């Protein structure tokens, strides 16, 4: 069976600059893969090529074994995407937002189903009928995650999902992602948070100047060693 996500010698040139240069990786079903890198390493661009927003200049990206370029809609349909610092509409309540976005994805959910999803992301009950403009950054992030849950897609793409969240919320979020992966969802997240990546991911890829320069996998039920990754990340950055 084809891997849910695969990048084959992916290259990307934007405005004359090589953003990605020959990046290859696959993410297996139920796996959490974290792309780790500094600012401008090409992390977000990688996600955008999987969504068909950016076209590879070389190589290709595949979703469920099919090239994204050949069927963008199918790729997007299989993916729930959580952009960095995303906010749903501030002038609508969480219920209204989720209702709207699900409709947009061609799905529908009852209020109960929405409540279940909001429970899972721990959005307080009293807040759900309020407009998002009164929400904290964390609450907005949670409502966006709830959308990703409700879409029940086989693949999740997460862009800096924990930035702006407090430590408790980060732990909760990591637990949630792990549960989702155990349920069979494939997760590709990009982050610059070494600790977070090592804590949640089954495998960490180190991205530097558009090149995949290292890979660390969890072995024998152990988490990836933060120290090793950190040393690799910092050491190479320094040189």
């Amino acid at each position, binding site marked *: 069976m084809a891997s849910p996500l695969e990048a084959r010698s992916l290259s990307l040139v934007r405005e004359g600059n090589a953003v990605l240069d020959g990046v290859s990786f696959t993410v297996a079903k139920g796996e959490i893969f974290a792309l780790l890198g500094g600012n401008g390493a090409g992390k977000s661009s990688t996600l*955008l090529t999987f*969504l068909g*927003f950016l076209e590879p200049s070389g190589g290709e990206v595949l979703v469920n074994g099919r090239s994204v370029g050949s069927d*963008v*809609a199918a790729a*997007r*349909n299989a*993916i729930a*995407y*959580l*952009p*960095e*610092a*995303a*906010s*749903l*509409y501030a*002038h*609508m309540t969480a219920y*209204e937002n989720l209702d*709207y*976005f699900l*409709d*947009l*994805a*061609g799905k529908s959910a009852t209020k109960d189903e929405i409540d279940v999803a909001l429970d899972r992301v721990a959005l307080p009950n009293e807040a759900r009928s309020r407009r998002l403009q009164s929400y904290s950054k964390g609450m907005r992030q949670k409502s*966006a995650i709830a*959308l990703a849950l409700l*879409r029940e897609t086989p693949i999740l793409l997460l862009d800096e999902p924990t930035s702006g969240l407090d430590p408790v919320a980060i732990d909760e979020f990591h637990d949630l992602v792990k549960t989702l992966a155990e349920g069979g969802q494939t997760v590709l997240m990009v982050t610059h948070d070494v600790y977070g990546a090592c804590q949640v991911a089954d495998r960490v890829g180190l991205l530097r100047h558009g090149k995949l320069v290292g890979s660390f996998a969890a072995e024998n039920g152990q988490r990836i060693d933060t120290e090793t990754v950190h040393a690799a990340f910092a050491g190479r950055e320094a040189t």
Partner: protein
Amino acid sequence: MLGHLTRETRFLIKDRGALFWLLLAFVLSIVAVTFGIAEVSEQRETIATLIKEDAADRANALEGQEDWGSAAYYAFHLTYAPPSDFAFAAMGQRDSSPWKHRVRMLALEGQIHEADTRNADFGLVGRFDFAFLAASVAPLLLILLLYDLRASERTMRRHDLLVATAGSSRSLWLPRALVRVTALVLLLLIPLWVGAMIEGTAASLALQASGIVVASLLVWWLIVELIGRLDASPSILLTSLIGLWLALAIVVPAVSKAAIEAANPVPDGGEILLLQRETVNDAWDLPAEATMEPFVERHPEYADHSEIGEEGFEWKWYYAFQQVGDQVVEPLATQYREARLARDAQAGLASWLSPTSLVERAFEKLAGTDARSMIAYENQVRAYHGELRAFYYPLMFPEEPFDADALSDLPAYDPQES
């Protein structure tokens, strides 16, 4: 598609910014239509009063007259162009060209250019009628409704999420924009339809007008759509769109107008009057034959009755030189009319460069308030003046005995005749 539309309608209902512009469009449309109907009914009232007073005045003037000449001299006749049942939507040239006259059988050129003008300050600014709203203001409102559909989502970092969720941009932006355009069109048109019902406008006319509004807004939508695809900040998009609107709504019409008027000089109106008056004035000093000859050339049927006596004043001679006055300026007057028509025809072509001009002109045409209609009215006045002459001449020149009862057969002005 229907599902997309209902979803986006629900979305629109929660967007207070968009609702504000839509509400504004609705209110402005109501205001424009209301003012239009009020103005049209005032014009109708004026005409009704004038018809009554005109008849009374003529009866008064004709009373006790003892010859054909004095009867024709003292009796004025009202001519007018009533506003059409769609004029409420576009007052057009009715504001700058006269639509009512009182003429008598003197030289027509001395009478037809009299303008029963409104307050000059008003002519300067122009009226807020539906045509102006639809042509100039509605595109601005459309721009404000649509310009940042994409760009605002981009600034809020929501664009990619939305498109990724929707799968394709078509199922998102098209219905979202379509709902707004449809709402704008409906809110603009509903007051127009109500107005058309009150005024008894023909359904086909109202339909054509609606078609014009829809077509023009679709063109503007296309423009906004093309510009809106640029990956620029909302404020730069809006600035560019407003600039484009300025160019299409103000600069292009102004430049074409200046060019057309320079290319088609209209004879100085004063010249027409001057020449006509000089001719009439000079006739007093000339021997009667100098007047009667050109007159008989035009009216050979009175050749046998064109002898003017040596002594005393004769009305025949007086009206003959009035007629000759008109004859002399005929080429100038024709040139004046032709030049106006030529300007109008070229303005019609130039208006294809500006959707705003095109819409206003189309509305004026439907409402019968365009330059052509006003010139047609002038032609009607000329024709009626001709009827007056045709009535009096056969009585006056053969010197039929005066019969006051015959005056009841005076031609009546009929605005419908063409």
